[in-house]
C-alpha cells in the first residue's frame, strides 16, 4: 500500500491508502475526494482531474505524458509548472507519501 495525501482548495486534507498501479485520479474517486471529477475515466479527453503535485514530489512524479500539456490548456483553474492530470500519475512504492493539491475548479 502507498500513502497518499490530497489537500483540497479549502485546505481539507485527506490521507488515504492506495494500491500501487492505481492512479492518483482513480484513488481520489474511490475515496470520494470532491476536488477530482475524472469525467472521462482517465482517457485523456478532459482536464477535470487536474492537480498540483507538491513541490517536494515533482522529481518523483516525473514529466507530463504525451498530450497532457494540450489537455491542461483547457483546465478550468490556473495551470502551474507543477500541474498534472492526476489520471496520468500511476502510483508505485516510489510515490509512498505523495502529496497533491487540488485546484478550486475542475469544470
Amino acid at each position, binding site marked *: 500500500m502507498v500513502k497518499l495525501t490530497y489537500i483540497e482548495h479549502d485546505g481539507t486534507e485527506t490521507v488515504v491508502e492506495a494500491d500501487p498501479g492505481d492512479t492518483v485520479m482513480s484513488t481520489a474517486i474511490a475515496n470520494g475526494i470532491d476536488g477530482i471529477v475524472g*469525467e472521462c475515466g482517465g*482517457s485523456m479527453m478532459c482536464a477535470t482531474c487536474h492537480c498540483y503535485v507538491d513541490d517536494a514530489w515533482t522529481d518523483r512524479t516525473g514529466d507530463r505524458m504525451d*498530450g497532457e500539456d494540450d*489537455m491542461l490548456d483547457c483546465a478550468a483553474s490556473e495551470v502551474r509548472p507543477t500541474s498534472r492530470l492526476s489520471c496520468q500519475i500511476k502510483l508505485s512504492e516510489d510515490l509512498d507519501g505523495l502529496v497533491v493539491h487540488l485546484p478550486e475548479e475542475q469544470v
Partner: protein
Amino acid sequence: MIDARVVIVGAGQGGLQAAMSLRQDGHQGPITLIGGEPGLPYQRPPLSKAYLKSGEADKLVLRPADFFAKKGITLRDGTWVEAIDRTARTVHAEGEALPYDRLILATGTRNLVPPIAGVSRALGLRTLEDARRLRARLTAPCRIAVIGGGFIGLEFAAVARSLGHEVHVAEAAPRLMARVLSPDMSDRFRRMHEGIGTALHLGRGVTEVTDEGIVLSDGQVIAADLVLLAAGVRPNTDLADRAGLAIDNGVRVDATLRTSDPDIFALGDCAAFPDPRTGRTIRLESVQAATDHARAIARTITAGTDAPYEAVPWFWSDQADWKLQIAGLASPEDDSVAVDDHTVLRFADDQLSAVETINNAKVHMKARKLLAGTTPPARDMLAAGDYDLTSV
C-alpha cells in the same frame, strides 16, 4: 428552487452527474436516483476497451457506495420505473409512488436489434453484464463476427484482434463509422483495421445469424463461434411517451433541456435537443452530452435561470493504438479537408463544423476552443493559414 424534491430516472453517468451537480450547486431538497441495473453507477466507455482486457469491474464504478449517503443522494438501484403521473407529479416504481417537484429523465438507450433471421444468437455490448459475458468468451481462441462497423463494433474488434482472435466485421454501409466520420477518416481506419488483421466486409449487411456464423447479403458465409451485434442504439423513450411527453427520435427538449412538461427535463443519450449552432434537433450518444446536459439542468433547477445549453460536442474512440477524437458535430454531407495524416476538418456553409483527429490532442483541444465561440471559424480564414488550427 433549492428545496425541490428531485427524482432522476436513470443512474448512468448523466443521471449521476445531475445528482452530483445539484448538490455542488447548493441544492438542499431530497434527490432520488433510480437505476434499472443492479449496483453502483458505472462508466460504460471502458466496457468495449480496457475492461475487456483487464476484467476489473471495480475500476468502472463512478463513485463509491458511501458517497451517496454523504451527499444525501438516495440511490435506488435495480429498480424499474413503470410510469410517470404528471398530474399527481409522482413516479411509479415497484408499487410505490415517489413524489417529485422536478423530474430528470436520463433513461439512455438500448441496443437496436435489426430484423435479421436468428439475430437472438448474437450477443450485445451495452451493460457490464454484457461485457462480462463477452469477456468470458474471449479466454479461448475463437472466430468472431461483428455486425456493425461503428465505434462499439470496431473497439471490440480491435481488442479481440489484440488477444489473437480471428475477427470479421460486417458493415452494411460502404464505409466505417459513416454516420460520424468523413470518408477520408473512415478510409484511414479501414486501412488500420485491415493492417492489424481484421477482415472487413463493407457494403454488405448481414441477412442471417446461424449456429455456424453469419450470412452476408451477397451470400458469403462467415464462420464464427461468437457473433457480436453492434448495430447502433435506440433511445429509451417509452416512459416519456406513455406520460404524453413530446418524442422526436428521443425525448424532445427545448434549449433549456425541458421536455414539453416544464417540470420534467431530459438529458444525455435519450434527449433530442436543439443544436445550439444549427438549431436542428439532434441526439448525441456521448459522455460529453450526458455530463454537460446534467450540469446545465442542475444550474437551471438551483438558480432558476433559463440559460440555453450551448456546450461543444466531443467524442472519442480508442481502436488499437489510435485514439480518434472528434470536436464539434458534422453532418454526413459536410465538406472535408484532410490537413495531414492525423487531421480532417469538416465544413458546413464554409464554417468549421467539426475536427477529426487521430492521436493529436493538441489540435483536438484547440478545435474545442475554436468551436466554443458564437461564430465558428470561417473556411477562407483557416485556408489562409494552411488549415493549421494551432496557429489560429
